[in-house]
């Protein structure tokens, strides 16, 4: 048994030195379970981005231990970390970060080609995943011809096409209107979540809290609150669940069990 897909113990990270140092993370302990959609919220500068960068294996912590599927990332070389990410981590970015000169299908296939899959096979697999996110009719479309919601769907397809164990999403809905944001979150819930995969979403968008399994609120490099909730279908009114639709997170935390 490898335990949690994501496990952090005493993770510390600072930028700069001396009195000017910025202490982005001040001893984070966190376990994220398989099949879980974990949300990370908090004001700008609270350490969310630093935390997901470390979780994604693209930033090294100063102290503490980060284990992804039991692998201590700190012990891996830069190249081995890159290989680990290519196999195990998927990314969804706020600004999509699609390659503007590649088609939707090529963008998705790129993830597989980075992992060494031949182009033809990668394109076939990309086509299948684009079908699952409802973009099968736009395989040849260039990113600049697509709406923000469509681009984000392609980004999700790109993130999951190699079936990673960890999916890291940075503000996936913040550049989208309410309806598009809802569609993206529903796709994430419907397609991205699966047993064995942990999904961590950083967001400022209180409209999407309802899609989470747990929410961590960060401040000054600490996780100050952790809320567990059960996912509620968006259109289902369940009076006994925490109501986050009005955006009052404090009320949600007050009503929920703090772990």
């Amino acid at each position, binding site marked *: 048994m490898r335990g949690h897909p994501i496990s952090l113990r005493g993770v510390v990270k600072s930028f700069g030195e001396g009195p000017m140092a910025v202490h982005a993370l001040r001893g984070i302990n966190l376990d994220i379970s398989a099949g879980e959609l974990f949300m990370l919220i908090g004001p700008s500068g609270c350490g969310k981005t630093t935390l997901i960068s470390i979780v994604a294996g*693209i930033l090294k912590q100063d102290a503490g231990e980060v284990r992804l599927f039991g692998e201590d990332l700190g012990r891996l070389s830069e190249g081995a970390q890159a290989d680990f990410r290519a196999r195990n981590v998927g990314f969804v970015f706020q600004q999509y970060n699609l390659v503007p000169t590649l088609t939707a299908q090529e963008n998705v296939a790129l993830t597989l080609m980075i992992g060494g899959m031949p*182009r033809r096979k990668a394109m076939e697999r990309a086509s299948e995943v684009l079908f699952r996110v409802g973009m099968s009719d736009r395989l040849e479309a260039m990113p600049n011809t697509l709406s923000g919601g469509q681009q984000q769907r392609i980004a999700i397809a790109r993130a999951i096409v190699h079936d990673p164990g960890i999916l890291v999403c940075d503000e996936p809905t913040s550049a989208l209107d309410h309806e598009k944001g809802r569609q993206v979150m529903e796709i994430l819930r419907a397609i991205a979540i699966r047993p064995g995969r942990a999904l961590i979403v950083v967001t400022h968008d209180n409209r999407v809290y309802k899609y989470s399994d747990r929410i961590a609120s960060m401040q000054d490099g600490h996780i100050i609150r952790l809320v567990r909730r059960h996912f509620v279908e968006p259109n289902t009114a369940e009076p006994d669940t925490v109501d986050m639709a009005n955006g009052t997170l404090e009320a949600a935390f007050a009503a929920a069990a703090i772990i």
Partner: protein
Amino acid sequence: MIRTALTMLVGDRAKFLGIVFGLAFAALLMTQQSAIFTGVMALVYGHVSDTPQAEVWISDPGMMDFETNDLINERELDNVRAVSGVRWAVPLLRRIVYSRNPDNGISPIMVLGVDDATGIGNPLPEAMVAGSVAALRRSDTVIIDEHAAASKLRVKLPAGGTRPLGIGDRLTMNGRAVEVVGVCRSTLALMLYPTAYMLRSRLSAIDAGNERGFNFIIAGLQPGADAATTCAAIDAATGLTARTREGFSSYIYDYYLYETGLAPNFAIAVILGFIVGAAIAGQTFSQYVSDNRRVFASLKAMGMRNSGLMRMLLIQATFAALLGLGLGVGGATLFGLLLEGTDLSFRLEPVLLLISFAAVLLISLGAAILSLRSLLRLDPALVFRS
């Protein structure tokens, strides 16, 4: 990843065209200027090439090039003939004569006066385009080079228009009428004078007011005679300088290469082409990488190793180099084709293509490697920063 790398580059149309334009410009300028230089340098010993019978060329020791030398005293001809290993020796005159053409225009013409007795120094039979070398034996006759006959010496017609100078036309050289009895192919002279051939005795008569003497003595060797030894013997016997045909050509070539401003001027043009091409391609490539930093950071975050990024960039750079080279060399070749039949010389040797290829590849890979430094240092965590 090759196709993906190329699609990424080509898809960024403006940057791609900028890079290719820079490389094509460099290739064009470097190839074209080098080819013109090579063509010009081939002219400097053109008359030596046109006289293959001469195995040894004897000149005044102070000779600079084919067109700049002091006269040789006529009595030295016998001294040369007396040297062991010399089979035959004949004089060669070279004079610049002003010629009044049939339409009354005046042109300077370089006239080569060939040996009356043997005709050595005449155009070869295979070089004759019209008329015959034998006709030169008639008094006051001349053979004109084909290129000049069709260009500088073209005859204006009274009714308008022009025609090439041809057999039967009469020229007046230093006040003496001569008839054109032949037209031949001849290597262009560096100074771009029309070239004409006539017997030495006639040329001496036309040039009677000037100092007597030969510009060169050309000689053939006895079978089995060692060229270097014979040349040394001629030097010792006459105080002149004898060189084999190859040595004479090399001497003139080296004179123009090292003693004139020809090479530096062309080199400056080539270097400028390299620098401007490198600046355009380098700047655009760097801009391309800079504009795509977030994309490259994403690729890095998604697990692409630095070696993968390096491979991608080098593929893009090589492709751009090949395309730029093709366009540049193609342009230079077109330029050369357009120059055919004109006074400008253009000789595109395979070695020039290799040099251009190496230079363009150097520019392109250099630009890629400079850009690569920033990519290798690129922090993949950039993808999470807004």
